[in-house]
């Protein structure tokens, strides 16, 4: 069952299908691997080592006859005031962009029969997955019945315009990501052809993903309303915004993909206070809510034994360090830090002991090797004695390290993120690393300094969830300049060679062999030091059918859900 839901494992042989499947899913705060799903009110199962869910435990309502109509209400942790896909990368924007905008391709996940972390895609504006004449060329046929919400037909020129704006608009934040594009052509109204500079195995993944992929028409994209209003060709018309509080949508009667959407109306509420999010669901004010930690999850299960839920693996956090400077340029110091962390204790304090204990840079992918299977697994064991020995070997007997640990304040990532930092700092003190905490305001300081790589010593952030395999390059490259999130200043020629190699490998099996070498190298070097993940739970009302959470951001899949009124 698991294999059937996994694109990578389902399509092992064909180069073209591998290419198509190389696509995939969302960066961010989404949580992912399913560990339990259903509507039982028993205690939660402990998080399993396996990262992907099993479809055997999925809701099975898809076979029922859909009942169109009604209103769906959803709570999100926040509603981003900026909704323009060209100028923001926020995952909060991607949630709602998916309701009103379309892309060439979209994720399949979000329905009961597809696992939440399945990163495979299906056609959206494109009639089918792209034709590929050679390793550099991708041809998409655009659906003839696709119309923007202003009534104008979507043409290949609109697609070209959108990608051109992503690449060249001075305020676009997607220029780097799409830099693999060499040229774009529109031989006719329904054909869009894209040529890449080099063979790039993640081309379709990027073109169908969340970053720089939404198609917003010129007349809207260049209007002053583009920041706060959405006008695309997606399943729902954006009708009203109550800034910071709610977004309202109505069914798009001219949506190109019939019979979707089923709901007549959709309301998304931004509720920043976690206690209110829980209370709103417990008091049946909303249909869907998400990302509950174990304590509120258990309370909600008790209060709403009827509710359906899906437990997922949270994304966890990681430590980055200045590996270009002493003392962290010595890998023994980095290994000591990893062995000085008591991840179990942190998990118990934050997530009732739940979560996947050991993590590498990929979270949740079915092909990502388990840490326990790596030759370097011992670096994840809590072993303060060995950690002290490594530090003594690197620094000299009796020497300690005085350093700083920079991180964002509570506003962005929540209390559990701060608690993790506090606990880890205390644990590292025990092995001789004395840390000065640098708690930075998220918007005014952290984003513009630490998250830019302007920090000293150590830093700490949640990990991003990548939907394309090559995300690894952004983490570790120095070519032609430091990767966007190479916060550890990794400069490793051997690693660079491996990253270059996997980018051009279209056969998944071959690419995964290279990825394995990268995993082992990164594990040995401990360029980044990873915490365990926690457990996050999605809840929804039992009468909502054909819905399942996804690891990826866009809420496009809500168009396939409906309410069983019977």
């Amino acid at each position, binding site marked *: 069952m698991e294999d059937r839901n996994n694109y990578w494992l389902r399509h092992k042989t064909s180069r073209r299908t591998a290419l198509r499947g190389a696509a995939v899913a969302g960066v961010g705060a989404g949580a992912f691997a399913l560990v339990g799903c259903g509507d039982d009110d028993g205690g939660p199962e402990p998080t399993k080592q396996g990262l992907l869910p099993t479809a055997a435990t999925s809701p099975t309502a898809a076979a029922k006859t859909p009942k169109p109509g009604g209103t769906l209400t959803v709570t999100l942790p926040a509603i981003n005031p900026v909704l323009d896909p060209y100028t923001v990368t926020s995952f909060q924007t991607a949630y709602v962009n998916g309701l009103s905008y379309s892309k060439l391709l979209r994720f399949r996940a979000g329905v009961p029969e597809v696992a939440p972390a399945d990163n495979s895609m299906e056609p959206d504006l494109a009639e089918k997955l792209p034709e590929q004449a050679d390793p550099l060329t991708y041809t998409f046929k655009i659906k003839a019945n696709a119309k923007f919400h202003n009534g104008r037909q979507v043409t290949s020129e609109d697609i070209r315009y959108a990608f051109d704006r992503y690449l060249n608009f001075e305020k676009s934040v997607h220029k780097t990501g799409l830099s693999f594009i060499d040229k774009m052509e529109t031989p006719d109204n329904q054909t869009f052809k894209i040529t890449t500079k080099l063979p790039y195995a993640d081309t379709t993944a990027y073109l169908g993903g969340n970053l720089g992929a939404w198609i917003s028409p010129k007349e809207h994209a260049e209007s002053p309303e583009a920041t706060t209003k959405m006008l695309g060709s997606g399943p729902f018309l954006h009708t009203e915004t109550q800034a910071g509080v709610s977004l309202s949508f109505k069914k798009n009667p001219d949506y190109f993909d019939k019979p979707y959407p089923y709901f007549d109306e959709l309301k998304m509420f931004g509720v920043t206070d976690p206690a209110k999010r829980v209370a709103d669901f417990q*008091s049946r004010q909303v249909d869907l809510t998400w990302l509950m930690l174990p304590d509120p999850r258990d309370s909600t299960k008790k209060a709403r034994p009827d509710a359906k839920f899906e437990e997922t693996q949270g994304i966890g956090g990681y430590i980055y360090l200045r590996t270009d400077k002493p003392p962290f340029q010595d890998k023994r110091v980095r290994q000591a830090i990893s062995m000085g962390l008591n991840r179990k204790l942190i998990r118990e304090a934050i997530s009732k002991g739940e979560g996947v204990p050991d993590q590498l840079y990929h979270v949740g992918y079915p092909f990502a090797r388990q840490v326990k299977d790596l030759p370097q697994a011992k670096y994840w064991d809590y072993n303060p004695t060995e950690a002290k020995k490594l530090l003594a070997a690197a620094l000299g007997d009796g020497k300690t390290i005085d350093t700083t640990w920079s991180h964002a304040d509570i506003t962005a990532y929540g209390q559990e993120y701060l608690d993790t930092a506090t606990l880890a700092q205390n644990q590292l003190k025990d092995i001789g690393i004395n840390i000065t905490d640098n708690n930075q305001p998220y918007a005014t300081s952290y984003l513009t300094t630490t998250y830019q790589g302007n920090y000293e010593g150590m830093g700490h952030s949640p990990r991003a969830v990548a939907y394309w395999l090559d995300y690894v390059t952004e983490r570790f490259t120095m070519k032609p300049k430091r990767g966007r999130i190479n916060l550890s200043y990794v400069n490793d020629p051997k690693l660079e060679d491996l990253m270059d190699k996997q980018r051009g490998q279209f056969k998944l099996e071959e690419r995964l062999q290279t990825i394995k070498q990268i995993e082992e190298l990164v594990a040995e070097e401990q360029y980044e030091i990873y915490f365990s993940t926690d457990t996050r739970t999605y809840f929804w009302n039992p009468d909502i059918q054909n819905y399942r959470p996804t690891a990826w951001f866009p809420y496009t899949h809500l168009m396939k859900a409906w309410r069983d009124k019977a």
Partner: protein
Amino acid sequence: MGQYVVKRILFSLLVLLAISVIVFSAVRVIPGNVCHIVLQTPDVTKEQCTVIDKELGIDQPMVTQYFKYMGGVLTGDFGKSLITKRAVGAEMKDRIPLTIELTLLSTFFALVIAIPIGVVSAVRQDSLSDYGLRFLTIGWLSIPSFWLGTMLIVFPSKWWHYGPPVGYVNIWEDPLRNLEQLYLPAISLGLALSASLARVTRSSMLEVLRQDYIRTARAKGLGGAVVVVRHALRNAMIPVTTLFALQVGVLFGGTVVLESIFSLPGLGGLTLSAVRAKDYSQVQGLVLLFATVLVVLNLLVDLSYAWIDPRIRYS
């Protein structure tokens, strides 16, 4: 009297001017880069930042920026939000009604609770009910409104699966639903205010109840309720009114946290999100608005003193 009024108004304008300078400078010395805020990503180029700086006029000297900004404010133009690009004035205008409604509701709850407690406590001085009520009011004073608000959300949903309707409906659209959405935050805000008002009402009433004219009223054979309500309470209300006027400003400030907790689209929630997002222009506009409200309230209190007490008028 006329001279006194003019003096107070001029002084208030001076205060507002000083506030505008402080606010304008403060938001500009906070570390951080505006173009990261505008684009909401740290991944920006120098060229992108140059374009944005020019567009916002922040490439000009600070003094020029200030005069341009104040020129706009005087004509009702507070600039545009860095984040949403909407006019700051329009954004505030949309949200003012909710905050005023919440403040009025809180005031209503505060008065309804405070006055009877203060009166009963004074009339039954040193009795068991007096002690009990004083204990209660001290308790309320020490409960932060955000904590009370959270408790009012959490426990009803836990015990009775009850929660106020999510989102916000305008009072003209659906008054009942609107009240259901606002009464919990209004109670949270109003309770702390009611505690201080009740204590002032009590002490003021005690003072008045010892006056000769109260004794005379009783001696004339007037009933207890008439003496308390008609003769004592009316006179005891003068310090209460003063405190109340000053506390309305505090209520206004209290909405910042409570609107966020209850996800209400008022000025408070806007302030918090603008501060978090470092939306300079929005923060400037909001602080100026809050400051103006406080200054005007203070001015009115000052003027009412002069009206009430001729000694101030002639000093």
